[in-house]
């Protein structure tokens, strides 16, 4: 379980997060949406300790992220993250991208790591690309590799930062399909996205963030059908065709 208690964050004078409160239970899929600059990506990066916060507390299975004694590297083994621009290591093959962390952090042997990597590639649908370099893959394929790379660490939670925003329209579905399968298999997921179709299908909760505050939250149908706040209505009318 991840608990976010009254978290606020400032960049200098600018407040990017204000009093965020949220609990994410195991097995849940939470979708975060909102206009650009609203702080959604920052919130995501606070959850796995890539960014720090000045007020409040985030605990991952009881471990507080702001406690100086906390070993953030250990926490990160439990949380995987997928980025908008895939961020695959361009100088390594797809296989090596996936096996690097398991070998160096989890101390797995090369055979073990590669076996697992091929299995993951099969799960995301592209086992034949194992020996290719990222530059030879399409965007959708690269993102699926990025998902496999994160899954290789056996995380309990997965964070997605606008995973399909950098993709051509025809490749969005292949990535969303992988994510939907993951959600249905019981992975705990926090997804920042504009893909409301995805939200409708698997989200247990949808949160709308604007200017660093949670403006509204709901469980799919109530959220889309009867948004309570004006800002939510305005935002939804812009992104839903």
């Amino acid at each position, binding site marked *: 379980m991840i608990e976010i208690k009254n978290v606020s964050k400032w960049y200098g004078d600018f407040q990017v997060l204000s009093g965020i409160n949220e609990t994410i239970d195991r097995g849940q899929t939470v979708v975060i949406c909102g206009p650009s600059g609203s702080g959604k990506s920052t919130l995501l990066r606070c959850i*796995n300790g890539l960014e720090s916060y000045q007020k409040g507390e985030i605990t991952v299975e009881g471990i507080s992220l702001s406690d100086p004694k906390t070993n953030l590297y250990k926490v*990160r083994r439990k949380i995987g*993250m997928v*980025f908008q621009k895939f961020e695959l*290591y361009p*100088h390594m093959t797809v296989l090596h991208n996936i096996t690097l*962390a398991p070998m*160096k952090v989890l101390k797995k042997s090369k055979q073990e790591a590669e076996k697992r990597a091929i299995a993951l590639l099969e799960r995301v649908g592209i086992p034949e690309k194992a020996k290719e370099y990222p530059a030879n893959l399409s965007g959708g394929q690269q993102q699926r590799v990025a998902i496999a*790379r*994160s899954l290789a660490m056996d995380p309990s939670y997965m964070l997605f930062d606008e995973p399909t925003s950098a993709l051509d329209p025809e490749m969005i579905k292949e990535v969303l399909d992988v994510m939907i399968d993951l959600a249905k298999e019981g992975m705990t997921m926090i997804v920042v996205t504009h893909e409301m179709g995805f939200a409708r299908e698997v989200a247990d909760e949808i949160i709308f963030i604007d200017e660093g505050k949670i403006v509204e939250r709901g469980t799919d149908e109530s959220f889309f059908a009867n948004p309570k706040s004006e800002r939510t209505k305005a935002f939804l009318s812009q992104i839903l065709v």
Partner: protein
Amino acid sequence: MFDAIINNLSYLLKGFLTNLELAICALAGGIFLGILVGLGRISKNRWVYHSVTLYVNFIRNIPLILVIFWFYFIMPILVGKPLNPFLSAAISFVVFEATYFGEIFRAGFQSISRDLVSAAYSTALTYTQTARYILVPIAIRRMLPSMITQSIITFQDTSLAYVIGLQELVRRTTIVDSMEVRSIQLYSFVAALFFVICFVGSRISRYYEMKSREANIL
């Protein structure tokens, strides 16, 4: 038609060898010092950052010939006896080229996107592991074309050691020219020699750059 060149070929080529030796010393020292300069330019320590920046900006504003002269004048004072021209020139080159290599390294270190580092961290790699397997390999691949280009420039610059009488190719050519007075032959020969090496080098750099671009490393 090429008699002046043929008669003095070994004399001239030995001079060319001196250019090569000087270039190698300059590159070895310049790259090593350049890495330190590059790190200094991205340092968070104010003393380090400002003193290195001062050094870089100072050297980059003055001509190499002047730096060569300056070391030629100061080394005997510091060391107590006149220094041989090769050593004096080598020191000048290292100090000079380090600023240019330093800027290349600085740009290389800074070019790695924050998100790529974040992606590595989010798979629980430590700072050292990220630096070793991701940052440094990518930075080196990115900096290689600029490093090759700068090395070619350094090699061309070795001709300037002429001014302190170093027995390199240009100096020897003027000596031969004063005897044979076959200026067109001789200076064309020098030009052609430099041209071939520098042209080939720049092609290699461009080829490598193109390959890196295709692999999305740049």
